[in-house]
């Protein structure tokens, strides 16, 4: 409210013509200002975060019959400023007389106090002489008038936002925040293309029509989402002339893709090394690492082949009608059943055609401390509790496996509540 009043007061001042009602002299204006400030200083002042009263928000050029005193006529003895219009900057490089600025005798003791109601950090007269605010304002007005005159001389283009003045380039150079980006180095392919005059590929659309399903699918992606997915999605692949008929063609395709991806990554890394984005030698490191890992995997495969594949604890045996166990899983299941007796299959009769049983070693469980150690008992209790909570409340791993389809989907007694007529109510405890 007080702000609007203030703005309105400004307007009144402008509208009224006499000098008497301007800043410098009359008691009336001082009083009116004081009134404003008394009322407004009680309000919460402007807080950070921007509650700004804008007088009107936009330019309001009202016709002022006579100029208020803080505007200096252009023909007077004003100090000419130099400008940097790119920064909206004006330099008044004329000598400034300290005596003028710190004029103790200036008659504006009231002027200072009319604009502000308090001072956050009070100036100590021992350190700061009293400043002639009126002079500062006048100088500011002079400079601003000249600056605006220069700005209005600039070429104006009419845009949809309004008339915009085109600012010239900045004169006062300012330092950058970051060094300019280094020039991009060409990759090996780009160099080659430049030499041979091979132009860039034409733009491809993101979705392509897939003949097989009659839908618009993506150009790249998973086999389901990809348009015109290649042989990896076909149920039948013909054996061509030079192919080994015994090799799994899908496996071959997967291996080819793996090598392609590896090659691409390596090439990308080498290009990055050349341009300095990657430290030299990281591509070689990666290649070596991959080779080592591959060797390790081969080794484990060998040992598994030699020692036989060890069966995991619970081999799934209940499958739906549409899912088959598969050769591997059957072998594992057989292995599991072979050793699922109390004697771990050592003294059981061998059936006809049964493959040899590998002796299953008993794993001796290490017991921490002695059986009666309180810490051991506590840890055992913890372990049991954890297992219980996993069973009762479900665990992340179980949910994940259910989602992946590793759990039985067939109906078991636990899938739904079966009422067999033997409820708690019908149970009678027999006496005696």
């Amino acid at each position, binding site marked *: 409210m007080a*702000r609007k009043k203030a703005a309105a007061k400004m307007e009144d001042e402008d509208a009224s013509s006499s000098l008497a009602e301007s800043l410098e002299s009359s008691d009336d204006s001082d009083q009116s200002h004081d009134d404003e*400030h008394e009322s*407004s200083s009680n309000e919460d*002042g*402007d807080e*950070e975060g921007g509650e*700004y*009263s*804008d007088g009107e928000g*936009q*330019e*309001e050029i009202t*016709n*002022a019959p006579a100029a208020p005193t803080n*505007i200096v006529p252009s023909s007077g003895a004003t100090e000419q400023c130099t400008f940097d219009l790119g920064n*909206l*900057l*004006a*330099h*008044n*490089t*004329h000598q*400034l007389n*300290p005596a003028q*600025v710190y004029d103790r005798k200036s008659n504006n003791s009231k002027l200072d106090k009319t*604009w*502000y109601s*308090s001072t*956050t*950090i*009070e*100036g100590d007269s*021992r*350190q*700061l002489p009293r400043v002639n*605010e009126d002079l500062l*304002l006048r100088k*500011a007005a002079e*400079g*601003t008038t000249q600056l*605006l005159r220069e700005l*209005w001389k600039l070429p104006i283009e009419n*845009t949809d936002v309004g*008339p*915009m*003045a*085109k600012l010239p380039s900045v004169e*006062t*150079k*300012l*330092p*950058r*925040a970051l*060094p*300019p*980006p280094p020039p991009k180095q060409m990759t090996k392919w780009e160099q080659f293309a430049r030499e*041979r005059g091979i132009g860039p590929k034409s733009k491809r659309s993101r979705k392509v029509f897939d003949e097989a399903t009659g839908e618009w699918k993506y150009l790249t992606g998973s086999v389901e989402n990809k348009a015109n997915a290649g042989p990896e999605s076909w149920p039948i692949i013909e054996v061509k002339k030079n192919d080994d008929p015994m090799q799994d063609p899908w496996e071959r395709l997967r291996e080819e893709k793996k090598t392609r991806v590896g090659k691409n990554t390596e090439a990308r890394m080498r290009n*990055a090394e050349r341009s300095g*984005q*990657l430290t030299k030698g990281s591509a070689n490191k990666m290649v070596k690492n991959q080779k080592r890992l591959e060797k390790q995997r081969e080794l484990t495969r060998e040992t598994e082949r030699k020692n036989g594949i060890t069966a995991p604890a619970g081999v799934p045996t209940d499958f739906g009608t549409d899912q088959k166990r598969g050769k591997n899983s059957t072998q594992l299941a057989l292995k599991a059943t072979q050793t699922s007796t109390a004697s771990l299959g050592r003294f059981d009769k061998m059936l006809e055609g049964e493959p040899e049983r590998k002796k299953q070693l008993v794993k001796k469980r290490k017991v921490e401390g002695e059986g009666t150690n309180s810490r051991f008992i506590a840890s055992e209790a913890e372990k049991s509790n954890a297992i219980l909570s996993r069973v009762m409340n479900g665990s992340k791993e179980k949910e994940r496996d259910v989602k992946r389809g590793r759990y039985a989907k067939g109906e078991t007694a636990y899938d739904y509540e079966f009422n067999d007529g033997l409820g708690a109510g019908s149970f009678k405890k027999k006496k005696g």
Partner: protein
Amino acid sequence: MAPTPHQAKTAKAKLISGGKQPKARVARYLKTTESQLVEGGKGSLLLKGIRCSESMSTVLKDMRSVQAPHAKLLSKNNLIVPFDDAGQQSLEFLTTKNDATVFAMASHNKKRPNNLVLGRTFDRRVLDMVEIGILQYRSLSDFGGLPKKRLGSKPLLQFVGDLWSSDVNLKRLQNLMIDFYRGDPVDSLVLSGLDHVIVFTAVEASVGGQEAFPMIHQRTYYMKLKRDPQGGVAPVPYLTPSGPDMDFKIRRTQFASPDLWKLAMKQPQGIKAKKKKNQTTNVFGETIGRLHLDKQDIDNRSGKKSKALRLAEKIEKEEENAALEAELGQEEDEMNQEFEQAFGHSQ
């Protein structure tokens, strides 16, 4: 939350060596933190030092209001001694993480009351620092009900006094002040939206017979544009004090070495408008250009086969196939004949 240079490098390395791509929104943000050809407005970081008084907090709050939306104000006190290596490292880290280039640290103690350290960074290292002591300050709230500038509007700046060009320290300070207050660098501007002026007046002040030192008076005025009563095109400004007003003197400075300064001022070559050397205009006003081609590497060139050659090859192939077929056919006939001869009937 811009990454530090080390973080950025490791992230990029991971990405190149086959890592998962970040989300598109994150990737767009990271791009803005990298070095760009043409830079936008500088972000500023406002923080408190070891001990800060309420008035100094007000100073920072007002600065944030004036510089919004580029300014970020941190609320906690920081154990940073700015003119110390460790302190500068902390400042560098904080400015990097908050996407700021320019910073102001306020503190208050008995030795340096109402202290404000203004500084800026280049390439995530401190470039300049100026420590100023505020002798008098009037905040936005002191100018209670008066109209003030709109959020985010660009100021008109003015430097009054010859000291700005004669004193070495003040020259650099002027540069720093422009960086602080000018806002977004723009090519074109709607002039009717200008609504405030910030004036820096530098005077030689000598208090109580002491040595004269340069005192700087910073005043902010709300500006209303009014039609020129003398009938000029440009409007005439009507200024009213709006705060924040600050009277200060320089305490300590740490300006960049000339080498670092030169590096910081280096502009990329892409920005300068190049003259087109291969274009000329002839007598008739037509623009004529000259193409300068590189030397053609004739030996290693690969070309496209002509249509006729391709057609010829095709025909040859077809003929071959036909000949083969014919031969096979002949062989089959011969074999059938033999069979008939041997067994008396066809297969």
